[in-house]
Every structure is written in C-alpha cells, then in structure tokens.
C-alpha cells in the first residue's frame, strides 16, 4: 500500500478515536443496532451488513476478551454491552468501557437520589418534631399534661404524622 494512503487511513482512524471520546451521545443508536444483529446468529442481519461477522452472544467480543462483571445493582433494560461495533465487526474497547462507565454513573445517580430522598425525609420529619418541641415549650405545654394549647396540639399532631410518613418510607435513616 502506498505510504500516502496509509497515512490517510491512519488519520481517519485517529479522528474516529477522537470522536469516540464523547461517550454520552453515542450510547443509544449503536447499542440498539448491536442488539439487532447479534442474536440469534445473523437471523435479522440488516441487508447492508453483508460482511459483518455476527456474534453468537452479545457478551463476547471478537477477541474473546472477558467482559466486566455485571454490577450488583439492578441493570436497566437498555442493552449496554457491546456498545459499538464498527462495520467490519471490530468492537471498540474504549467505547465498551465507556458504556459501562456511563451505566455505572447512571446507577450511582439512581442510588444516590433515593439516598438523598431518604435523607430529606428523615431531616424533614426530625425538624418537624424539633419545632413542635419548641412550640410546646413556648406555649407552656412542655411540662403540662394534658396539652391545652391548640398550637401545641397541632404541632404534636404534625410531629406524629411526620414520624409515620418517615417510618413508611425510610425505616432506617441514612447517617449524615
């Protein structure tokens, strides 16, 4: 092969690699197309993919490199394995790792949001009761039984209701 052609091909490859750094935008479409023609053995291969080397299972790459183990969190239905396969059947290792990285970040966000939600619920419930104690102290009901001031009664009811809501949603409050 002529040296100039080799250099040109090298540049094309480099530009492709550069584009592969932007991982987020390229997750959706390539992943779906991979899912279409990787199972079962070429049955639904698109017509334009005549020379594609179809794989039996979506988890194995052409060079049979081991895939990252499945994270312990519940994965979404969106296929994340083999995120990109070039037309000549070559899987891009960086993209595969990138897709896993994106999925892990997404799942971390899901876990983080539920943790953060529980933190808010626990903090809100706790603050309602602290405020209720202050209110009853101000109305003079802190040391008086039965409670007489309606503002204290209302605040105590709010505290009990908040406690029930917290127990129903977050039985164990996350540490600060």
């Amino acid at each position, binding site marked *: 092969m*002529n040296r*100039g*052609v080799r*250099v*040109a091909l090298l*540049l*094309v490859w*480099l*530009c*492709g690699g*550069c*584009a*592969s*750094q*932007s*991982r*987020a*935008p390229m997750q959706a479409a390539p992943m779906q197309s991979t899912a279409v023609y990787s199972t079962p053995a070429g049955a639904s291969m698109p017509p334009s993919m005549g020379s594609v080397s179809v794989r039996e299972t979506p988890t194995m790459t052409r060079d049979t490199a081991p895939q990252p183990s499945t994270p312990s969190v519940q994965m979404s239905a969106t296929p994340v394995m083999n995120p990109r396969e070039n037309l000549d059947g070559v899987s891009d290792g960086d993209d595969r790792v990138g897709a896993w990285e994106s999925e892990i970040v997404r799942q971390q966000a899901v876990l983080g949001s539920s943790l953060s*939600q529980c933190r*808010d*619920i626990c*903090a*809100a*419930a706790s*603050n*309602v009761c*602290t*405020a*209720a104690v*202050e*209110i009853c*102290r*101000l*109305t003079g009901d802190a040391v008086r039984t039965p409670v007489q001031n309606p*503002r204290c009664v*209302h*605040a105590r009811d*709010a505290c009990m*209701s*908040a406690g*029930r*809501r*917290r127990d*129903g*949603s977050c039985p164990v409050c996350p540490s600060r």
Partner: protein
Amino acid sequence: MKHWLLIMGLCVMAPVVGCDRGAHSSNDRETMERSMAILGTVRALHHEADVYESSGQFDLASHAVQRIMDLRLPESLPEAEDVRADAWGRMAELDLRRQRPDEALAHTVEGLRVAPHESVLQARIYMVRGQALRALADRATTAGDTTNAARFREEALTTLEHSIEINTRILGRLTPGASR
C-alpha cells in the same frame, strides 16, 4: 499529490466530524471534576466542623463553616443554593450553641435570602430562626421586658409553625403513598 489533498481535507474536517465532540466532552468532564472538587471541599469542612462541635469548640466549628460560606461557588453549580443554605443554617445553629441569639437571627436572615426556594434546608433555617427568637424571648423575660418578650414569643411561634408547614409539604411530596 492527490493523497496529500486527501490528508489536508481530513485534517480540515476532523474537528467537524468528531474531534470537536471530544472537546465538548473534555469541557463537561472538567466542569464535573470542578464541581466534585468544590463539593468535596464543602464536605470536608463540614466534617471539620463536626469534629470541633463534638468537642465543644464552637468557635473553631464556626470558622470551618465560615470557610464554606467564603467558597466561590459557580452559579452553574446546581447544588450552590443548597450548599449556601446549609452553611448559613449551620452557622446560625452554632451561634445558638454559643448563646448568641442575635447573631443567629442575623444569619438566618442571610440564609433565607440565599435560599428562596422551598426545601428542607430552608425549613431548617426557619426552625433555627424560631429557636433564636425563643432565646430572645427568654432573655427579654429574664430582663423584665414583657413587651418584647411577648413579641419575640409570638414571632417565634409563627416562624416555627411556618417551618413545620414547609416540612409537611415536602414530606407530602416525597412520601405521597404514606399514611398521614
């Protein structure tokens, strides 16, 4: 010569077909790393304040919180309002622990200014404000100033009730299916 033209064309097109996306990705990553660094610093300073507060060194704890308030938070940081509200609320709490209700009250004013949106942190600032007003009412009572004592007391009750209202609304949103 034709090959060199091809190479030149590829070099010109490279930013258009992909390398510019790499640059965007790099910017996003840089922004994310910067945000993580800021939030990490905030977290570390809160831990520092925890350590001082647990040993009764409230002045040093306040100093750590002051350093959070001195941080330059980028406006693009989504957590900026929460970070500020949390810091002002905690500073007011520390003022109360140092028996300084006037300063606590002033800090809650500033805290409510930087936290205009309804949140647990905003409700907490109202709660601390109510506690500061209650402390001022107690002080006025001790001084025989019954007029101001009654005024502070009523204002404290209203503020604490407002805090409960906010928290109750938030709980209703976060736990829609839970029993009331």
